[in-house]
């Protein structure tokens, strides 16, 4: 596998160096491994921190900035950040009004954020965690680790970020992030596997004519392996799974057709056309949309479809100005 890198061990740090050089509006701390808004901390503003394994860019570092995250902590590739890192990010953005942690539901992420929250409380910073678990491919049960956090993380970070920017209180910012999570579902499909640089070989094997339905964002296998089918059929499988879990008929929705890193935008737009047609045919109205690479899995080919059932308030917060490397409008 060819990789555009200098050295396997430096991949994450080199990416952070690049973020620092390309986006002077960010404060990148290579020592603590955190990416922080340059104007943080702002007194009286609720801080919004997220993080997770690297390899999902622009998530999360690319969403740090006005109207979205205050800080992100990138872990090793596909490995959660450590508590010290999360604590450093939390301390850096704490303006006295508390800090919300947006955590994707993976055991490692949940545990490390939990330990960081305890450490932050020792320093008198109030932390409220919000766990994102929008992936319908995993059967939910109180006896398992539950559903994975995937595409809805982008929705939650944008919408909670907007509320925090406008002066929302800690409980309200956390509350709106939870509301977004409850009203969102995602389903991902892989056309190829991906290769973690340190591993040097693909995380799983997919035949030339095979696809994996219901993948998570780390290249972990999904619900079922099937033969390659058309974009329209893949979109149908994804949206049917979502609709079965959370009926969409009669709703006004925000839709993201997200590339996993290795699929051309041309193909994503093709999938988006199929998605909009599917939704219209099933009684849903698409009022906001996002097409592109927002939550990736290294160079994996494939896409993930995420849907959020909007309310007028959520729409207003989605439309609010945002200025980050990965999302920007209205400012």
């Amino acid at each position, binding site marked *: 596998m060819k990789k555009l890198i200098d050295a396997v061990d430096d991949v994450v740090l080199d990416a952070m160096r690049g973020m620092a050089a390309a986006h002077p509006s960010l404060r990148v701390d290579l020592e603590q491994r955190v990416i922080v808004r340059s104007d943080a901390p702002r007194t009286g503003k609720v801080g919004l921190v997220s993080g997770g394994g690297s390899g999902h860019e622009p998530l999360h570092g690319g969403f740090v900035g006005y109207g979205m995250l205050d800080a992100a902590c990138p872990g090793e590739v*596909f490995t959660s950040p*450590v508590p010290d890192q999360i604590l450093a990010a939390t301390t850096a953005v704490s303006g006295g009004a508390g800090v919300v942690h947006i955590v994707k539901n993976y*055991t*490692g992420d949940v545990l490390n954020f939990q*330990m960081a929250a305890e450490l932050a409380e020792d320093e008198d910073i109030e932390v409220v965690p919000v766990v994102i678990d929008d992936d319908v491919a995993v059967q939910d049960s109180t006896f398992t*680790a539950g559903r994975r956090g995937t595409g809805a993380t982008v929705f939650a970070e944008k919408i909670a970020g907007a509320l925090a920017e406008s002066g929302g209180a800690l409980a309200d910012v956390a509350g709106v992030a939870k509301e977004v999570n409850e009203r969102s579902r995602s389903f991902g499909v892989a056309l190829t596997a991906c290769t973690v640089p340190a591993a040097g070989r693909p995380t799983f094997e997919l035949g030339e004519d095979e696809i994996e339905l219901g993948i998570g964002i780390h290249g972990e*296998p999904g619900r079922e392996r099937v033969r390659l089918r058309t974009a329209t059929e893949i979109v149908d499988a994804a949206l049917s799974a979502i609709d079965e879990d959370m009926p969409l008929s009669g709703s006004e929705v925000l839709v993201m057709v997200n590339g996993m890193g290795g699929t051309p935008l041309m193909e994503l737009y093709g999938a988006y056309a199929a998605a909009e047609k599917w939704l219209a045919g099933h009684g849903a109205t698409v009022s906001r949309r996002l097409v592109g690479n927002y939550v990736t899995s290294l160079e994996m080919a494939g896409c993930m479809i995420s849907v959020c059932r909007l309310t007028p308030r959520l729409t207003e917060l989605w439309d609010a100005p945002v200025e980050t490397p990965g999302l920007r409008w209205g400012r």
Partner: protein
Amino acid sequence: MDTYAWMVRFAELVSADAERLTRLDSAIGDGDHGSNLDRGMRAAAEALSADLPPGKVLMTAGRTLVSKTGGASGPLYGTALRRAGKALGDASEVGAAELGAALRAALEGVQELGKAEEGDKTMVDALAPAVTAYEAAAGEGLATAARAALDAAEKGAEATVPLQARKGRASYLGPRSVGHQDPGAASTVLLFRALAETAASS
């Protein structure tokens, strides 16, 4: 009980077996358990020194694991060792009974954090029977109790093979997780092998 020797030996065993642990994790997880725990335990062994009190050794190892490992294994092993170290307190000598209480505290810490029960196909499936076996044999001395704990941990890890995972990343696979040994249970066996070897030679 020389907790310093125990931790150094654990680091050696993890290093020697890192590839096997990663292979087990590739089958049902994300293929990094061996390399992550190896990175963490190397750092932990470096942070330790033989002249620290026994409890402090375990707390330092635990704190380093939490800081350096990432993933789920850092917080879980880190908490286990920190709790064990805390239970030992400032004592300069650790006997069979004290170590039993420390192991029980480690198990409680892991279950509190990870919310796993026996049978969920996690490290608890090796840790819980090991602690119980240790306690049952503690009256016969440290070396015997540690040996009993190792035997129980091995049996517990082996018994995870037919289980369907209900916690951790393997749980996303559902029935496809059956037929593979849990990597966390496998590394827990190494923790008790290191303990048994250390106890036997002291």
